[in-house]
């Protein structure tokens, strides 16, 4: 088995996939903590479907660099969703569901009507579940991913305490002079960035899992904000590594395998919580 793994890891594309997978899992796990606590667990799902819709538009327009459409559309949607807050006529969860299914439907219609490839079903499936594109990463992809995740982590570290304050009590933060709207905007933006990048790894359907599972598992057992954040990172790292290795050895789809690893950890942590 070790020989088999060593053989796989002698290929650069496997090493790239591993690195990118770990980075995305870490970034998603970091953002998961405030998002879950703000009751925005489904924002990952919603935004990734919007990204899917934007991807469909980009491929219909035959753009060589589809990020030019996907990134701005997703960021704008994220900002709108997070800034709607509690005052909107359509509440957070409903607004996310509404945008999510609409974008999915429109994207699917576009791909069907204006399809450039002969295998629409396969194309859609691979966008939704991530399939193979992780193994075809170029050096540029890896570099872009690395820079984006580094920015996300830097933003997170520098705004850590304020994000905690705004997540725990937005009114108090605003009343005492913290620019809560600014931090919500920042959180929305980095969330959108992570999601667009993560599309390659797990596909649009499973991104939610990368965002919510580590945070939810950590919250079963840990009792302070700092320990929850650190535990989320460790869980995300372990699940990404074991998921990718298992998917290589068992020839299973990578994204789905990482999610199942996360589910297993969640079940274990829930049991620990019950026993305590």
């Amino acid at each position: 088995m070790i020989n088999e793994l060593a053989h796989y890891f002698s290929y650069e594309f496997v090493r790239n996939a591993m690195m990118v997978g770990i980075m995305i899992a870490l970034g998603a796990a970091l953002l998961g903590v405030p998002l879950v606590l703000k009751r925005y667990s489904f924002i990952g799902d919603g935004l990734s479907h919007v990204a899917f819709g934007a991807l469909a538009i980009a491929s219909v327009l035959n753009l060589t660099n589809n990020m030019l459409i996907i990134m701005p559309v997703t960021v704008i949607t994220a900002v709108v969703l997070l800034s709607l807050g509690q005052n909107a006529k359509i509440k957070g969860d409903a607004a996310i569901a509404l945008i999510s299914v609409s974008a999915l439907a429109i994207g699917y219609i576009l791909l069907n009507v204006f399809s450039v490839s002969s295998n629409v079903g396969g194309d859609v499936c691979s966008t939704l579940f991530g399939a193979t594109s992780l193994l075809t990463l170029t050096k540029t992809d890896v570099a872009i991913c690395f820079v984006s995740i580094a920015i996300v982590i830097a933003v997170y570290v520098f705004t850590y305490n304020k994000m905690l304050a705004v997540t725990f009590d937005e009114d108090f933060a605003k009343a005492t002079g913290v620019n809560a709207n600014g931090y919500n905007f920042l959180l929305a933006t980095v969330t959108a960035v992570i999601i667009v990048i993560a599309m390659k790894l797990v596909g649009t359907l499973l991104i939610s899992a990368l965002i919510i599972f580590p945070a939810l598992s950590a919250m079963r057992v840990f009792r302070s904000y700092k320990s929850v954040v650190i535990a989320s990172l460790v869980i995300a790292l372990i699940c990404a590594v074991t998921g990718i290795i298992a998917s290589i050895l068992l020839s299973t789809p990578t994204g789905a395998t990482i999610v199942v690893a996360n589910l297993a950890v969640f079940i274990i942590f829930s049991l620990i919580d019950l026993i305590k």
Partner: protein
Amino acid sequence: MANEKKHTRILNKNKVSAQLIVKDLVLGYEGKVVSKDINFQIYKGNYLCIVGENGTGKSTLMKTLLGLRSPLSGSIEYGDNLTSKRIGYLPQQTLVQKDFPASVKEIVMTGFLGNHGFLPWYSKDEKRRAEEIMEKFGIADFRNKCYRNLSGGQQQRVLLARALCATEDILLLDEPVSGLDPKVTYEMYELIDKLNKEEGITIIMVSHDIDASVKYASHILHLAHIPIFFGTKDNYMRQGFHLWKTDEAMLRNGGGILD
């Protein structure tokens, strides 16, 4: 900004200047007036209770004073060097907080962040001050405990400690004893009274509890009465307003007899 500064300077020429001047304030939602002709001034060390039935705009007034929502018309001016960054606030608890995984210390410390600008971490001074405040409020022993595992009274102390980290001047409290049992309610009132009497912190409190308001406050703002009553507690009692109980107070008294 410029106007605010100018305003503060003019006020400082007088010996005693008000911390908060509310003029002809009209409150409401989407153009619908809830409360109007609100006029009052608060000086350092005052203890103001805002009373009135549900729907008379008590919480709306508090949120407007804090700048969380804008009034339909009228003005709120800060004086005596007060700015929004020197206000402490004890809000009502929200659903999100009920299962929030954060330690007492982590939550108390967030009170400092309004004055931080882009500074990401807490200073040594702030850590020491947070310790002092937690000590004073009897929550230092729980500093590493999870907020969601505390009793209601302990949680309110944590939020009060956080508010005190944000200010040395003025505390705005939105129904600080709601949901607490009588003993804990009494302790909470005594703690707030101590902050007012011993440290000279101005208190503005929204309350259902007219008996306690009359006992502790120096001034009363009664929103249900038209014209709106604002004045000292003695004036309030002389006019017999405190006997004119709110629905809640009546219900509570009725319940007391039944018990």
